[in-house]
């Protein structure tokens, strides 16, 4: 198997970069359009989003819910697991401002997720067909928050 890491890391950076301006057409172009059952599992969704109609509806709704969105990725790993299949993992930080009334001050919120992505090699390059965002759980998040408070208070 060849080293797919550079190509897939670049693709992931491009994909994550499309968050800015909520360029979901750009994101969609990096998915395997021929896959009949693509699966997207965003951290805020209660159920997996399966199939193109559902994914398109989710992205349309995201434009309504959020006023702005930016994302960055790091710690990319990728490996080829079959001639036309690869698995990628990376960390992603998103920063979003939720939409709301203009007279209400809203601060951006952000979090880190660990992503597992599956990709298929197509003539045009590697393309996503399965992507799951994994935040740390509530207990873990509480621990991270307490650790940050301890660092900041420096007792």
């Amino acid at each position, binding site marked *: 198997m060849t080293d797919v890491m550079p190509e897939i890391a670049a693709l992931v950076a491009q994909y994550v970069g499309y968050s800015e301006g909520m360029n979901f057409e750009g994101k969609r172009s990096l998915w395997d359009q021929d896959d009949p059952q693509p699966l997207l*599992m965003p951290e805020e969704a209660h159920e997996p989003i399966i199939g193109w109609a559902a994914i398109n509806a989710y992205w349309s709704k995201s434009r309504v819910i959020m006023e702005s969105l930016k994302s960055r990725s790091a710690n990319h790993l990728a490996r080829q697991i079959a001639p036309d299949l690869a698995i990628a*993992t990376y960390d992603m930080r998103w920063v979003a401002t939720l939409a709301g009334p203009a007279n209400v001050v809203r601060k951006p919120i952000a979090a880190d997720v660990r992503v597992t992505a599956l990709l298929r090699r197509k003539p045009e390059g590697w393309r996503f067909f399965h992507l799951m965002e994994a935040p*740390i*759980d509530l207990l*873990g998040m509480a621990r991270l928050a307490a650790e940050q408070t301890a660092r900041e208070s420096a007792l």
Partner: protein
Amino acid sequence: MKADETEPLEHIVTAWASAWQHRMSAQLVALWDTADVKSWFLSAGSVEPYIGHAVVGHLQRRCLGSNAIGYRPGQLHLRRLAPDIGLAFFNLDWSERLAAQNLDGNKTLGGRVRVTMMMRLQASVWRVFHYAEAPLAPLLELQAFYEAIAADGLENIPSRTFVPATQP
């Protein structure tokens, strides 16, 4: 997708769940591709993933460190991606009671996560080589808990039993 193509994948998920339910680390390790030095295991509560040989130690510690584990997969989404590569995605309702004493009085904790599990077929045996758990965003979990308290009603404040300590 023909049912017989995904049947072996469903068997692996069932065996994996049974091994967790019975805290049988040897069975979990037998289902894991221990020869894959890049295998990947991400728990919902861990900051860092376990990779390669570290996975085996983690599986053993988790089984030893618990008095009871509940592991119930549901809504399986199975795909045979290649003759020797399988994908399982499922909702997982879990519970765990830790063996070590802690401030919670060893109450059982639980939750729901979403799992991506990858398997490969080698020498007629399917084994797991990638496993990742994804909880709902913590902000939403907390909001759901607040909503559950609201649904419980104003009158249902939990009763408290005050037992004075007899020893200092």
